[in-house]
C-alpha cells in the first residue's frame, strides 16, 4: 500500500472528523444490539482438500499487501523485517498472504489411527485482546463478532499477535501508514489475518471458505444457535468442542471426535502454526481493573466530599 504523507494526514483528519461525528450518534442507531455471528467447523467432515485455503486467497487477493522495496532502514538496526512478499504461495502456515491453512494431525483414538485436518485461522474471540490492546484501534471487533485490522491505521507493532493466545496476526513490512510518519523510528508494516470476509457478509453473502467447502464442514450463523447446535451434537454423539470457552469464548467452534488435547499434541506448532491447547480468558483481569477504574472517580469523590464537609465544618466552627 502506497500512502503519501499528505494522504496519511488527510486520512487521519477525515477519520478524526468522522469519529467526532460518530460519538454523537446514539448506540441504538449503530445497531449495537445485533447478534454476533459464529462458525462451527466439523472436523469429522473436513477432508483437508484446501479448497477453503485457495478460495480465501482468491477472494482476499485485493486486500493483500503490496510492499514498497527496498524497505526503509529501521533503528535500532536489529529490528527484524517481516517479508512474505516473495513467499506468497506458502500454504502450510499463516502468513500475511495466507489467512487460513490446514493443520494436520495423526492421532490414535479408540485404538485406531486417524488423520484429522483442521482449518486454522483467526478464532474471532468474543473478548479479543488484539482489539482491546491495539494502541491505535486498528484492530477492532465489529458488531457482528468479526474482528478486523484496518491496514490504513495499523503500524505493524505486532502487539496484537503477541497478545493473541494463538499468535494469529502476521506482519508484512514495507506497507501501511508507518511509511508516511517515521519509518525509521516507529512501526514495521501492517498486521494481517482472517477478516471472515466481512465485506461479503455485509452484502449478505457467505465467507469464501464456507462457500468453497465441498463437504460443508463449516457452517455460519448467530452465535447462540451455533453454540446450541454444537453442544447438542457433542452431547448426542459424544464429541469434543474447542473454542466455546477458550479465551473467554470465541466465535469459532471446532467439533471433533478426537479430544483436543490429543490433537494438540499431534499437530506441528510454532510461528504461524497455532496450538489447540486450553486457553484462559486473557482479558479477565483487565476487565476487573477496568471496573475498578470506572468506580474509582466516584470513590474519590465520595471520600473527598466527606473530607471536604468535615473541613468546612471545622473551618466555620473555628471562625465562630
Amino acid at each position, binding site marked *: 500500500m502506497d500512502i503519501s504523507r499528505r494522504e496519511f494526514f488527510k486520512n*487521519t483528519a477525515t*477519520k*478524526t472528523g*468522522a*469519529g*467526532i461525528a*460518530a*460519538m454523537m*450518534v446514539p*448506540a441504538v442507531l*449503530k*445497531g*449495537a444490539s*445485533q447478534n454476533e455471528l459464529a462458525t462451527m467447523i466439523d472436523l469429522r467432515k473436513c477432508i483437508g482438500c484446501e479448497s477453503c485455503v485457495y478460495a480465501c486467497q482468491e477472494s482476499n487477493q485485493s486486500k493483500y499487501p503490496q510492499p514498497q522495496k527496498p524497505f526503509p532502514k529501521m533503528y*535500532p538496526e*536489529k*529490528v527484524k523485517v517481516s517479508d512474505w512478499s516473495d513467499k506468497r504461495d506458502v500454504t502450510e502456515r499463516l502468513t500475511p498472504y495466507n489467512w487460513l491453512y490446514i493443520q494436520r494431525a495423526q492421532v490414535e483414538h479408540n485404538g485406531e489411527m486417524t488423520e484429522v485436518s483442521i482449518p486454522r485461522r483467526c478464532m474471532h474471540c468474543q473478548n479479543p485482546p488484539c*482489539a*482491546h*490492546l*491495539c*494502541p*491505535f*484501534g*486498528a484492530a*477492532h*471487533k*465489529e*458488531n457482528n*463478532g468479526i474482528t478486523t485490522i*484496518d491496514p490504513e*491505521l495499523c503500524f505493524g*507493532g*505486532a*502487539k496484537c499477535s*503477541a*497478545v493473541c493466545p494463538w499468535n494469529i496476526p502476521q506482519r508484512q513490512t514495507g506497507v501501511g501508514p508507518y511509511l508516511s510518519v517515521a519509518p525509521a523510528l*516507529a512501526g*514495521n508494516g501492517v498486521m494481517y489475518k482472517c477478516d471472515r470476509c466481512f465485506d461479503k457478509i455485509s452484502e449478505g453473502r457467505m465467507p469464501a471458505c464456507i462457500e468453497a467447502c465441498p463437504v460443508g464442514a463449516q457452517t455460519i450463523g448467530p452465535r447462540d444457535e451455533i453454540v446450541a447446535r454444537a453442544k447438542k451434537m457433542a452431547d448426542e454423539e459424544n464429541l469434543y468442542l474447542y473454542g466455546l470457552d477458550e479465551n473467554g469464548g470465541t466465535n469459532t467452534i471446532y467439533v471433533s471426535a478426537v479430544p483436543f488435547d490429543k490433537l494438540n499434541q499431534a499437530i506441528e506448532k510454532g510461528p504461524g502454526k497455532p496450538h489447540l491447547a486450553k486457553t484462559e480468558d*486473557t*482479558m479477565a*483481569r*483487565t*476487565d476487573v*481493573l*477496568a471496573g*475498578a*477504574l*470506572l468506580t*474509582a*472517580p466516584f470513590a*474519590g*469523590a465520595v*471520600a*473527598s466530599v466527606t*473530607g*471536604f464537609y468535615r*473541613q*468546612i465544618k471545622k*473551618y466555620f466552627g473555628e471562625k465562630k
Partner: protein
Amino acid sequence: MKKTTSIYPELPQWYRYAFIITTAMLLFSGLGQMPLYKRYFIADVPGFSWTGDYFFLNHLHYFSAALMAFLIPVGFFKNYFRSYIENNESRPAAYAFIIMFAAFFAADIAKIIAAGYGAGYPREMIFTISLMNILLTFLFVITVPLLWASKKILITVEAKEGNTDSSGKYGAPQ
C-alpha cells in the same frame, strides 16, 4: 500589589508523592502500550523483561489509572475548593492544569471503554479517541515536568485588597 502563589498551595506531602508516582506509572505503562519497549529492546535489558509483557503493562496502566481516578477528585475538593473559600482567590493556572489533566484522563477512560467494550462502535471513533489519548499524553508529558521540576511553578496573581498572604503558606511572596 502582586504576590506569587504556588499552583499546588496546600497539597499534603503524601498527596504529592502519590500523584507523582501514579503519574509516572501511568506514563510509563502508557508508553508501553505502543510497543516501544520491545521495539527499542528495553525488554531485553536484564531486569526489564516485564516491560515486554503487554498484559502486565496493561494491568499496571489500568491500576495506576484507577489510583489517579481516585486522587483527582480528592485533590480537587480537598485543596482547591478549600483554598478558594478560605482565601477567596482563584488560580487560573491551577484550573487550567486540572482541565488539561481531566481531558487527558477522560480520553484515557474513553479509550479503555471504546477499545474494550466498543464492539460495533465505528472504528473512526475509537481511532479518534486513541489519537486524543496519545496527543494529550504527549501534551501532558511536555507540560507537567516543566511545572513540577521548576521551583518557580508560581503564578502571579493580583492580590485582592485585604487578602495579602504574608505567612508564606500559599507560596513565597516576591
